[in-house]
């Protein structure tokens, strides 16, 4: 038990995590490419035309994964933020900071693809309905988190302030998720139901899940890369960074 605790904290030190993350990134990139290629092939070439929305429905294959990721990344970010507040570990704050820009981009993509889907199907780019508005608030939460952190010079204080904002903002996630149930909205409910004609729903579902996995792996890879940058920047005066740079020089 005690032994395990020590190992966890060793893993949480940037000196150990930095090379580990460097080794993991190429694998996540490779997985992302494989899942992406498979998902797009299924979605763009195999999946049949939707009987109601024609070919326009194919936006679903990036709209839904981007929306899922925007919410999931926020939860992971808030988890790291909470961990940082509770245990004051250095790595937690760096991970939360590294995730925020990717989450913001996912939220933006969700809104962007949603607008491009809404125009031909609903006849409008945007409506102030519960699902769309709460997703917009999510984008603002990400931007607020980034802005707040960059406004505070001391990284430890920036981490704490950001963590409080991230934790307060978590309340928005169930609101987004359940908005289509709680309120009467223009946004459709569950995107793909298994009760429709099974072969078609299965192809669409698989394509969507594969692209979601692709986005997931992409997000991990790019967040790890950003976390490595933050580690170097913040720990530049420590011995391990000096050794690392000295090793790279020769």
């Amino acid at each position, binding site marked *: 038990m005690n032994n395990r605790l020590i190992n966890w904290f060793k893993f949480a030190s940037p000196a150990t995590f930095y090379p580990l993350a460097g080794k993991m990134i190429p694998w996540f990139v490779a997985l992302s490419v494989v899942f992406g290629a498979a998902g797009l092939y299924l979605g763009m070439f195999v999946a049949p035309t939707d009987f109601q929305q024609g*070919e326009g429905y194919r936006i679903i294959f*990036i709209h839904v994964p981007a929306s899922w990721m925007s919410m999931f990344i926020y939860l992971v970010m808030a988890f790291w933020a909470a961990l940082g507040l509770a245990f004051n570990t250095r790595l937690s704050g760096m991970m939360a900071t590294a995730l925020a820009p990717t989450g913001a981009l996912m939220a933006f993509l969700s809104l*962007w693809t949603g607008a491009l889907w809404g125009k031909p199907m609903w006849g409008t780019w945007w409506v102030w309905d519960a699902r769309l508005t709460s997703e917009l608030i999510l984008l603002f939460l990400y931007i607020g988190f980034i802005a707040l952190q960059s406004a505070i010079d001391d990284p430890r204080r920036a981490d704490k302030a950001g963590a409080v904002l991230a934790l307060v903002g978590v309340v928005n996630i169930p609101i987004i998720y359940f908005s289509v149930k709680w309120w009467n909205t223009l946004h459709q409910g569950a995107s793909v139901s298994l009760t429709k004609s099974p072969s078609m729903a299965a192809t669409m579902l698989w394509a969507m899940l594969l692209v979601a996995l692709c986005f997931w792996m992409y997000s991990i890879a790019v967040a790890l890369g950003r976390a490595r*940058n933050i580690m170097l920047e913040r720990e530049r005066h420590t011995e391990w960074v000096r050794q690392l740079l000295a090793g790279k020089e020769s």
Partner: protein
Amino acid sequence: MHWNSASEFFAMGGYAFYVWGSFGVTALIMAVEPIIVARRRKNLLSRLKRQITAENLAQRSEES
């Protein structure tokens, strides 16, 4: 295969603007974000290396 020709694929049944507008911007963002992260890493490494070299030089001139 669902499509009969390449032009039919690109036309997306009349939804080309909306479908390719979505996929295009997504592809652009997913290409640019890693480039920004990689470029930042490159700049950071060269800056830190220069700092260390400068410090070493200062130390050496102090010793001599």
